[in-house]
Protein backbone atom coordinates (compact mmCIF):
# COMPACT_ATOMS: atom_id res chain seq x y z
CA UNK A 1 0.00 0.00 0.00
CA UNK A 2 2.76 2.43 0.86
CA UNK A 3 4.43 1.87 -2.51
CA UNK A 4 1.48 3.40 -4.39
CA UNK A 5 2.63 6.24 -6.64
CA UNK A 6 0.30 8.37 -8.73
CA UNK A 7 2.75 11.01 -9.98
CA UNK A 8 0.49 13.95 -9.08
CA UNK A 9 2.16 17.33 -8.55
CA UNK A 10 0.99 20.00 -6.15
CA UNK A 11 0.28 22.49 -8.94
CA UNK A 12 -1.87 20.09 -10.94
CA UNK A 13 -5.57 19.47 -10.89
CA UNK A 14 -7.67 16.88 -12.64
CA UNK A 15 -11.33 16.05 -12.84
CA UNK A 16 -11.95 12.55 -11.57
CA UNK A 17 -13.87 10.47 -14.02
CA UNK A 18 -13.69 10.36 -17.79
CA UNK A 19 -10.16 11.61 -18.36
CA UNK A 20 -8.83 10.58 -14.97
CA UNK A 21 -5.07 10.28 -14.57
CA UNK A 22 -4.53 13.02 -17.14
CA UNK A 23 -3.54 16.26 -15.35
CA UNK A 24 -5.44 19.32 -16.56
CA UNK A 25 -2.84 21.98 -15.91
CA UNK A 26 -3.48 23.47 -19.35
CA UNK A 27 -6.55 25.16 -17.94
CA UNK A 28 -4.16 27.54 -16.22
CA UNK A 29 -2.89 29.02 -19.42
CA UNK A 30 -5.87 28.89 -21.75
CA UNK A 31 -9.63 29.11 -21.76
CA UNK A 32 -11.62 25.95 -21.73
CA UNK A 33 -13.30 25.47 -25.08
CA UNK A 34 -15.90 23.04 -26.12
CA UNK A 35 -14.09 19.90 -27.15
CA UNK A 36 -14.09 19.02 -30.81
CA UNK A 37 -16.20 15.87 -31.09
CA UNK A 38 -13.79 14.46 -33.63
CA UNK A 39 -11.00 14.66 -31.03
CA UNK A 40 -12.93 12.87 -28.37
CA UNK A 41 -11.97 9.25 -27.85
CA UNK A 42 -14.38 7.07 -29.73
CA UNK A 43 -16.26 4.67 -27.58
CA UNK A 44 -15.52 1.19 -28.64
CA UNK A 45 -18.70 -0.76 -28.88
CA UNK A 46 -18.61 -4.41 -28.32
CA UNK A 47 -17.78 -6.15 -31.54
CA UNK A 48 -19.36 -9.31 -30.37
CA UNK A 49 -22.49 -9.02 -32.49
CA UNK A 50 -20.65 -7.88 -35.58
CA UNK A 51 -18.16 -10.68 -35.36
CA UNK A 52 -20.76 -13.31 -34.82
CA UNK A 53 -20.87 -15.65 -37.81
CA UNK A 54 -24.26 -15.64 -39.41
CA UNK A 55 -24.94 -19.31 -38.89
CA UNK A 56 -28.49 -20.60 -39.01
CA UNK A 57 -29.81 -21.79 -35.69
CA UNK A 58 -29.17 -25.47 -35.16
CA UNK A 59 -32.25 -27.58 -35.57
CA UNK A 60 -33.46 -28.85 -32.26
CA UNK A 61 -33.83 -32.52 -32.23
CA UNK A 62 -36.88 -33.62 -30.31
CA UNK A 63 -35.50 -37.00 -29.44
CA UNK A 64 -33.11 -35.29 -26.99
CA UNK A 65 -36.08 -33.90 -25.11
CA UNK A 66 -37.76 -37.29 -24.92
CA UNK A 67 -34.54 -38.85 -23.67
CA UNK A 68 -34.17 -36.20 -20.95
CA UNK A 69 -37.79 -36.68 -19.88
CA UNK A 70 -37.29 -40.43 -19.68
CA UNK A 71 -34.17 -39.98 -17.59
CA UNK A 72 -36.01 -37.69 -15.15
CA UNK A 73 -38.86 -40.17 -14.82
CA UNK A 74 -36.40 -42.98 -14.19
CA UNK A 75 -34.65 -41.00 -11.44
CA UNK A 76 -37.97 -40.13 -9.77
CA UNK A 77 -39.02 -43.76 -9.93
CA UNK A 78 -35.73 -44.90 -8.42
CA UNK A 79 -36.03 -42.42 -5.54
CA UNK A 80 -39.60 -43.53 -4.80
CA UNK A 81 -38.58 -47.19 -4.90
CA UNK A 82 -35.72 -46.64 -2.49
CA UNK A 83 -37.90 -44.62 -0.17
CA UNK A 84 -40.67 -47.23 0.07
CA UNK A 85 -38.18 -50.05 0.55
CA UNK A 86 -36.52 -48.22 3.45
CA UNK A 87 -39.87 -47.41 5.03
CA UNK A 88 -40.92 -51.05 4.82
CA UNK A 89 -37.73 -52.31 6.44
CA UNK A 90 -37.92 -49.81 9.27
CA UNK A 91 -41.50 -48.92 10.18
CA UNK A 92 -40.36 -46.44 12.86
CA UNK A 93 -38.39 -44.41 10.44
CA UNK A 94 -40.87 -41.69 9.54
CA UNK A 95 -40.26 -39.21 6.83
CA UNK A 96 -40.46 -36.24 9.16
CA UNK A 97 -39.07 -37.86 12.28
CA UNK A 98 -35.45 -38.83 11.83
CA UNK A 99 -34.29 -40.84 14.82
CA UNK A 100 -30.74 -39.60 14.73
CA UNK A 101 -30.04 -35.97 15.39
CA UNK A 102 -27.99 -34.31 12.76
CA UNK A 103 -24.89 -32.78 14.32
CA UNK A 104 -23.53 -29.76 12.57
CA UNK A 105 -19.78 -29.53 12.61
CA UNK A 106 -18.57 -25.96 13.09
CA UNK A 107 -16.73 -24.71 10.07
CA UNK A 108 -13.12 -24.12 10.98
CA UNK A 109 -12.22 -20.57 10.19
CA UNK A 110 -9.10 -20.30 8.13
CA UNK A 111 -6.35 -18.58 10.05
CA UNK A 112 -5.00 -16.05 7.67
CA UNK A 113 -1.70 -14.46 8.58
CA UNK A 114 -1.09 -10.77 8.01
CA UNK A 115 1.29 -9.70 5.28
CA UNK A 116 2.46 -11.61 2.28
CA UNK A 117 4.22 -14.93 2.04
CA UNK A 118 7.79 -14.26 3.07
CA UNK A 119 10.69 -14.77 0.75
CA UNK A 120 12.74 -17.42 2.53
CA UNK A 121 16.06 -15.85 1.58
CA UNK A 122 15.93 -12.19 2.51
CA UNK A 123 15.42 -10.49 5.86
CA UNK A 124 13.28 -7.36 6.01
CA UNK A 125 10.31 -5.74 7.69
CA UNK A 126 6.96 -5.43 5.94
CA UNK A 127 4.71 -2.51 6.80
CA UNK A 128 0.92 -2.81 6.52
CA UNK A 129 -1.39 0.13 7.21
CA UNK A 130 -4.94 -0.46 8.30
CA UNK A 131 -7.75 1.25 10.19
CA UNK A 132 -9.75 -0.60 12.82
CA UNK A 133 -12.60 1.17 14.63
CA UNK A 134 -11.20 4.48 13.41
CA UNK A 135 -7.81 3.68 14.96
CA UNK A 136 -5.09 3.91 12.33
CA UNK A 137 -2.56 1.14 12.78
CA UNK A 138 0.78 0.53 11.13
CA UNK A 139 1.80 -3.11 11.45
CA UNK A 140 5.45 -4.08 11.16
CA UNK A 141 6.17 -7.74 10.43
CA UNK A 142 9.80 -8.91 10.60
CA UNK A 143 10.81 -11.75 8.28
CA UNK A 144 13.75 -14.12 8.60
CA UNK A 145 15.27 -12.50 11.66
CA UNK A 146 15.97 -13.52 15.27
CA UNK A 147 14.73 -11.38 18.16
CA UNK A 148 17.01 -10.22 20.98
CA UNK A 149 17.21 -7.48 23.60
CA UNK A 150 19.78 -4.70 23.67
CA UNK A 151 20.64 -2.35 26.54
CA UNK A 152 22.18 1.06 25.93
CA UNK A 153 22.63 3.16 22.83
CA UNK A 154 21.37 1.09 19.89
CA UNK A 155 23.54 0.30 16.84
CA UNK A 156 21.31 2.28 14.50
CA UNK A 157 23.76 2.00 11.59
CA UNK A 158 23.84 -1.81 11.72
CA UNK A 159 22.16 -3.01 8.49
CA UNK A 160 21.64 -6.47 10.01
CA UNK A 161 18.98 -5.16 12.39
CA UNK A 162 15.78 -4.99 10.41
CA UNK A 163 13.45 -3.87 13.20
CA UNK A 164 14.20 -2.14 16.48
CA UNK A 165 11.75 -0.82 19.09
CA UNK A 166 12.16 0.31 22.68
CA UNK A 167 11.12 -2.50 25.01
CA UNK A 168 10.85 -1.94 28.79
CA UNK A 169 10.01 1.40 30.40
CA UNK A 170 12.57 3.41 32.34
CA UNK A 171 11.72 4.56 35.87
CA UNK A 172 11.34 8.31 36.19
CA UNK A 173 13.05 8.49 39.59
CA UNK A 174 16.28 6.50 39.19
CA UNK A 175 16.32 5.95 35.40
CA UNK A 176 16.56 2.18 35.92
CA UNK A 177 14.65 -0.45 33.95
CA UNK A 178 11.09 -0.88 35.22
CA UNK A 179 10.07 -4.49 35.77
CA UNK A 180 12.00 -7.74 35.51
CA UNK A 181 14.61 -7.78 32.78
CA UNK A 182 17.07 -10.44 31.63
CA UNK A 183 19.74 -9.58 29.08
CA UNK A 184 21.40 -12.63 27.49
CA UNK A 185 20.98 -14.65 30.70
CA UNK A 186 21.96 -11.81 33.05
CA UNK A 187 19.16 -10.43 35.22
CA UNK A 188 19.29 -6.62 35.31
CA UNK A 189 16.00 -5.91 37.11
CA UNK A 190 13.56 -7.95 39.21
CA UNK A 191 10.39 -5.87 39.58
CA UNK A 192 6.91 -7.25 38.85
CA UNK A 193 4.87 -4.08 38.59
CA UNK A 194 3.53 -5.06 35.17
CA UNK A 195 1.79 -8.30 34.34
CA UNK A 196 2.69 -8.53 30.66
CA UNK A 197 5.91 -10.21 29.65
CA UNK A 198 7.99 -11.14 26.63
CA UNK A 199 10.48 -13.99 26.80
CA UNK A 200 12.99 -15.02 24.14
CA UNK A 201 14.30 -18.51 24.81
CA UNK A 202 16.56 -20.09 22.19
CA UNK A 203 15.41 -17.51 19.64
CA UNK A 204 11.70 -18.26 20.18
CA UNK A 205 9.58 -15.40 21.42
CA UNK A 206 6.67 -15.86 23.82
CA UNK A 207 4.28 -13.05 24.79
CA UNK A 208 1.93 -13.48 27.72
CA UNK A 209 0.27 -12.12 30.84
CA UNK A 210 1.12 -13.54 34.24
CA UNK A 211 2.35 -12.27 37.63
CA UNK A 212 4.52 -15.36 37.96
CA UNK A 213 6.09 -17.09 35.02
CA UNK A 214 8.91 -19.60 34.75
CA UNK A 215 10.22 -17.79 31.69
CA UNK A 216 12.30 -15.41 33.85
CA UNK A 217 14.25 -18.35 35.30
CA UNK A 218 14.43 -20.08 31.91
CA UNK A 219 15.86 -16.95 30.32
CA UNK A 220 18.46 -16.74 33.08
CA UNK A 221 19.42 -20.39 32.72
CA UNK A 222 19.53 -20.54 28.92
CA UNK A 223 21.13 -17.19 28.12
CA UNK A 224 17.80 -15.86 26.91
CA UNK A 225 15.98 -12.55 27.24
CA UNK A 226 12.99 -11.39 29.30
CA UNK A 227 11.22 -8.10 29.99
CA UNK A 228 7.93 -6.91 31.41
CA UNK A 229 5.43 -4.37 30.13
CA UNK A 230 1.74 -3.48 30.40
CA UNK A 231 -0.49 -6.24 29.15
CA UNK A 232 -2.94 -5.05 26.47
CA UNK A 233 -4.51 -8.31 25.25
CA UNK A 234 -4.55 -11.59 27.12
CA UNK A 235 -5.72 -14.71 25.26
CA UNK A 236 -7.87 -12.64 22.91
CA UNK A 237 -9.45 -10.53 25.67
CA UNK A 238 -8.91 -6.82 26.24
CA UNK A 239 -6.90 -5.92 29.38
CA UNK A 240 -7.95 -2.59 30.87
CA UNK A 241 -5.20 -0.21 31.95
CA UNK A 242 -5.54 2.63 34.41
CA UNK A 243 -3.65 5.12 32.25
CA UNK A 244 -6.25 7.20 30.40
CA UNK A 245 -4.11 9.73 28.55
CA UNK A 246 -3.68 9.59 24.78
CA UNK A 247 -0.36 9.07 23.03
CA UNK A 248 1.18 7.27 20.09
CA UNK A 249 0.90 3.64 21.25
CA UNK A 250 3.11 0.76 20.32
CA UNK A 251 2.58 -2.94 21.04
CA UNK A 252 4.25 -6.29 20.57
CA UNK A 253 1.59 -8.68 19.32
CA UNK A 254 1.07 -12.36 18.72
CA UNK A 255 -1.57 -13.50 16.25
CA UNK A 256 -1.87 -17.08 14.94
CA UNK A 257 1.76 -17.59 15.95
CA UNK A 258 2.91 -14.56 13.98
CA UNK A 259 4.78 -11.87 15.91
CA UNK A 260 4.56 -8.23 14.87
CA UNK A 261 4.75 -4.69 16.18
CA UNK A 262 1.68 -2.44 15.90
CA UNK A 263 1.94 1.36 16.11
CA UNK A 264 -0.95 3.82 16.14
CA UNK A 265 -1.04 6.50 13.48
CA UNK A 266 -2.18 9.13 15.97
CA UNK A 267 -2.59 9.64 19.71
CA UNK A 268 -4.87 6.96 21.18
CA UNK A 269 -5.95 5.76 24.64
CA UNK A 270 -4.84 2.34 25.84
CA UNK A 271 -8.44 1.18 25.76
CA UNK A 272 -9.02 2.10 22.10
CA UNK A 273 -5.65 0.68 21.11
CA UNK A 274 -6.26 -2.61 22.92
CA UNK A 275 -9.76 -2.89 21.44
CA UNK A 276 -8.37 -2.37 17.94
CA UNK A 277 -5.83 -5.14 18.54
CA UNK A 278 -8.57 -7.48 19.80
CA UNK A 279 -10.63 -6.70 16.70
CA UNK A 280 -7.59 -7.42 14.56
CA UNK A 281 -7.55 -10.93 16.02
CA UNK A 282 -4.49 -10.47 18.22
CA UNK A 283 -4.31 -13.17 20.89
CA UNK A 284 -1.65 -11.66 23.15
CA UNK A 285 -0.16 -8.19 23.18
CA UNK A 286 1.99 -6.15 25.52
CA UNK A 287 2.76 -2.46 25.33
CA UNK A 288 6.11 -1.15 24.14
CA UNK A 289 7.59 2.28 24.84
CA UNK A 290 5.38 4.64 22.84
CA UNK A 291 5.20 8.39 22.16
CA UNK A 292 6.78 10.25 19.28
CA UNK A 293 10.15 10.19 21.05
CA UNK A 294 10.59 6.42 21.39
CA UNK A 295 13.52 5.84 19.09
CA UNK A 296 13.57 2.85 16.78
CA UNK A 297 13.73 1.96 13.13
CA UNK A 298 12.79 -0.60 10.49
CA UNK A 299 14.34 -1.69 7.21
CA UNK A 300 12.06 -2.56 4.33
CA UNK A 301 12.52 -5.00 1.46
CA UNK A 302 14.46 -2.40 -0.54
CA UNK A 303 16.87 -1.81 2.34
CA UNK A 304 15.44 1.61 3.21
CA UNK A 305 15.94 2.47 6.88
CA UNK A 306 13.03 4.44 8.39
CA UNK A 307 12.89 5.87 11.91
CA UNK A 308 9.83 5.57 14.14
CA UNK A 309 10.51 8.71 16.16
CA UNK A 310 10.52 12.44 15.59
CA UNK A 311 13.07 12.91 18.38
CA UNK A 312 15.03 10.83 20.84
CA UNK A 313 14.86 10.90 24.63
CA UNK A 314 18.13 9.23 25.59
CA UNK A 315 18.60 7.26 28.80
CA UNK A 316 21.52 5.23 30.06
CA UNK A 317 19.41 2.11 30.49
CA UNK A 318 17.23 2.51 27.43
CA UNK A 319 16.65 -0.92 26.01
CA UNK A 320 15.54 -2.27 22.68
CA UNK A 321 13.83 -5.27 21.22
CA UNK A 322 15.62 -5.99 17.96
CA UNK A 323 15.28 -8.44 15.11
CA UNK A 324 18.68 -9.35 13.69
CA UNK A 325 19.13 -11.14 10.35
Amino acid sequence: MSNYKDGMRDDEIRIIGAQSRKPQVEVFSSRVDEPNPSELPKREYSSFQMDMPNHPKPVKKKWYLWLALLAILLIIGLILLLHFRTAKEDPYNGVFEPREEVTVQPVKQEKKLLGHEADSLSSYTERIDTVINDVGLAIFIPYNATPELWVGRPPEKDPNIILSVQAADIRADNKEILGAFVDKGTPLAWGQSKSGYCAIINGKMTIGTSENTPFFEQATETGGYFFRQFSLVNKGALVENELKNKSVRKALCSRYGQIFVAVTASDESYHDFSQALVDLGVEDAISLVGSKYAFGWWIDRDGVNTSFADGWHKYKKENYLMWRM
Partner: protein
Amino acid sequence: MSKFIVISTNTELLRVPSDRLMFITSDGNYSKVYTQDGHYRQVAYQLGQLEDIIGDQLGEEETPFIRIGKSLIVNRDYIYLIDVSSQVIIVSDCQGQFHTLQASRKALISIKVLMENTEL
Protein backbone atom coordinates in the same frame (compact mmCIF):
# COMPACT_ATOMS: atom_id res chain seq x y z
CA MET B 1 -31.01 9.02 -5.96
CA SER B 2 -27.32 9.71 -5.59
CA LYS B 3 -24.70 7.08 -6.12
CA PHE B 4 -22.72 5.72 -3.23
CA ILE B 5 -18.97 5.62 -2.94
CA VAL B 6 -17.94 2.44 -1.18
CA ILE B 7 -14.47 2.31 0.37
CA SER B 8 -13.71 -1.16 1.61
CA THR B 9 -10.71 -2.55 3.47
CA ASN B 10 -10.24 -5.99 4.99
CA THR B 11 -11.85 -4.83 8.23
CA GLU B 12 -14.17 -1.97 7.33
CA LEU B 13 -16.56 -0.75 4.69
CA LEU B 14 -17.31 2.96 4.38
CA ARG B 15 -20.37 3.89 2.28
CA VAL B 16 -20.97 7.55 1.49
CA PRO B 17 -23.51 9.13 -0.88
CA SER B 18 -21.39 10.85 -3.48
CA ASP B 19 -23.30 14.12 -3.17
CA ARG B 20 -22.65 14.18 0.58
CA LEU B 21 -18.91 13.72 0.29
CA MET B 22 -17.38 17.19 0.62
CA PHE B 23 -13.67 16.54 0.37
CA ILE B 24 -10.85 14.13 1.17
CA THR B 25 -7.48 15.06 2.62
CA SER B 26 -4.31 13.03 2.50
CA ASP B 27 -2.41 12.00 5.62
CA GLY B 28 0.48 9.87 4.40
CA ASN B 29 -0.71 6.32 3.94
CA TYR B 30 -4.12 7.32 5.31
CA SER B 31 -6.83 9.67 4.08
CA LYS B 32 -9.66 11.46 5.84
CA VAL B 33 -13.06 11.44 4.18
CA TYR B 34 -15.19 14.46 5.21
CA THR B 35 -18.93 14.34 4.78
CA GLN B 36 -21.54 17.08 4.74
CA ASP B 37 -22.77 16.19 8.25
CA GLY B 38 -19.51 17.47 9.74
CA HIS B 39 -17.98 14.08 10.39
CA TYR B 40 -14.88 12.54 8.94
CA ARG B 41 -13.62 9.00 8.74
CA GLN B 42 -10.02 7.89 8.43
CA VAL B 43 -9.31 5.14 5.89
CA ALA B 44 -6.14 3.21 5.13
CA TYR B 45 -5.91 4.32 1.53
CA GLN B 46 -3.65 6.84 -0.10
CA LEU B 47 -5.34 9.71 -1.92
CA GLY B 48 -4.41 8.38 -5.37
CA GLN B 49 -6.03 5.06 -4.54
CA LEU B 50 -9.23 6.83 -3.46
CA GLU B 51 -9.15 8.81 -6.70
CA ASP B 52 -9.13 5.52 -8.59
CA ILE B 53 -11.95 4.14 -6.45
CA ILE B 54 -14.15 7.20 -7.03
CA GLY B 55 -13.38 7.17 -10.76
CA ASP B 56 -14.20 3.47 -11.03
CA GLN B 57 -17.41 3.64 -9.00
CA LEU B 58 -18.91 6.79 -10.50
CA GLY B 59 -18.53 5.54 -14.04
CA GLU B 60 -16.98 6.99 -17.13
CA GLU B 61 -18.70 10.34 -16.98
CA GLU B 62 -17.03 13.31 -15.35
CA THR B 63 -17.64 13.37 -11.64
CA PRO B 64 -17.97 16.47 -9.47
CA PHE B 65 -14.72 15.50 -7.76
CA ILE B 66 -11.50 17.33 -8.54
CA ARG B 67 -8.09 16.17 -7.45
CA ILE B 68 -6.11 19.23 -6.36
CA GLY B 69 -2.41 18.59 -5.96
CA LYS B 70 -1.02 15.75 -3.91
CA SER B 71 -3.20 16.07 -0.86
CA LEU B 72 -6.76 17.06 -1.71
CA ILE B 73 -9.87 15.82 -3.48
CA VAL B 74 -12.77 18.29 -3.45
CA ASN B 75 -16.39 17.95 -4.49
CA ARG B 76 -16.82 20.99 -6.74
CA ASP B 77 -20.48 21.36 -5.69
CA TYR B 78 -19.24 22.44 -2.26
CA ILE B 79 -16.60 24.91 -3.38
CA TYR B 80 -17.57 28.17 -1.74
CA LEU B 81 -14.51 30.36 -2.22
CA ILE B 82 -11.28 30.20 -4.15
CA ASP B 83 -8.82 32.76 -2.83
CA VAL B 84 -5.76 32.62 -5.04
CA SER B 85 -3.86 35.33 -3.20
CA SER B 86 -4.22 33.57 0.16
CA GLN B 87 -3.81 30.16 -1.48
CA VAL B 88 -6.98 29.00 0.20
CA ILE B 89 -10.04 27.12 -0.97
CA ILE B 90 -13.11 27.14 1.25
CA VAL B 91 -15.46 24.19 1.09
CA SER B 92 -18.90 24.79 2.54
CA ASP B 93 -22.49 23.58 2.35
CA CYS B 94 -23.69 27.06 3.43
CA GLN B 95 -25.54 25.37 6.26
CA GLY B 96 -22.86 25.34 8.91
CA GLN B 97 -20.08 23.27 7.41
CA PHE B 98 -17.14 25.47 6.61
CA HIS B 99 -13.65 24.10 5.91
CA THR B 100 -10.63 26.18 4.92
CA LEU B 101 -8.10 24.18 2.93
CA GLN B 102 -4.68 25.05 1.56
CA ALA B 103 -3.71 24.51 -2.08
CA SER B 104 -1.06 25.77 -4.44
CA ARG B 105 -1.58 29.04 -6.25
CA LYS B 106 -1.32 27.49 -9.70
CA ALA B 107 -3.80 24.74 -8.88
CA LEU B 108 -6.26 27.30 -7.51
CA ILE B 109 -6.00 29.41 -10.65
CA SER B 110 -6.67 26.29 -12.71
CA ILE B 111 -9.79 25.46 -10.70
CA LYS B 112 -10.98 29.05 -10.89
CA VAL B 113 -10.70 29.09 -14.66
CA LEU B 114 -12.27 25.65 -14.90
CA MET B 115 -15.26 26.68 -12.82
CA GLU B 116 -15.69 29.98 -14.62
CA ASN B 117 -16.05 28.04 -17.85
CA THR B 118 -18.20 25.19 -16.61
CA GLU B 119 -20.53 27.01 -14.24
CA LEU B 120 -21.84 29.48 -16.80
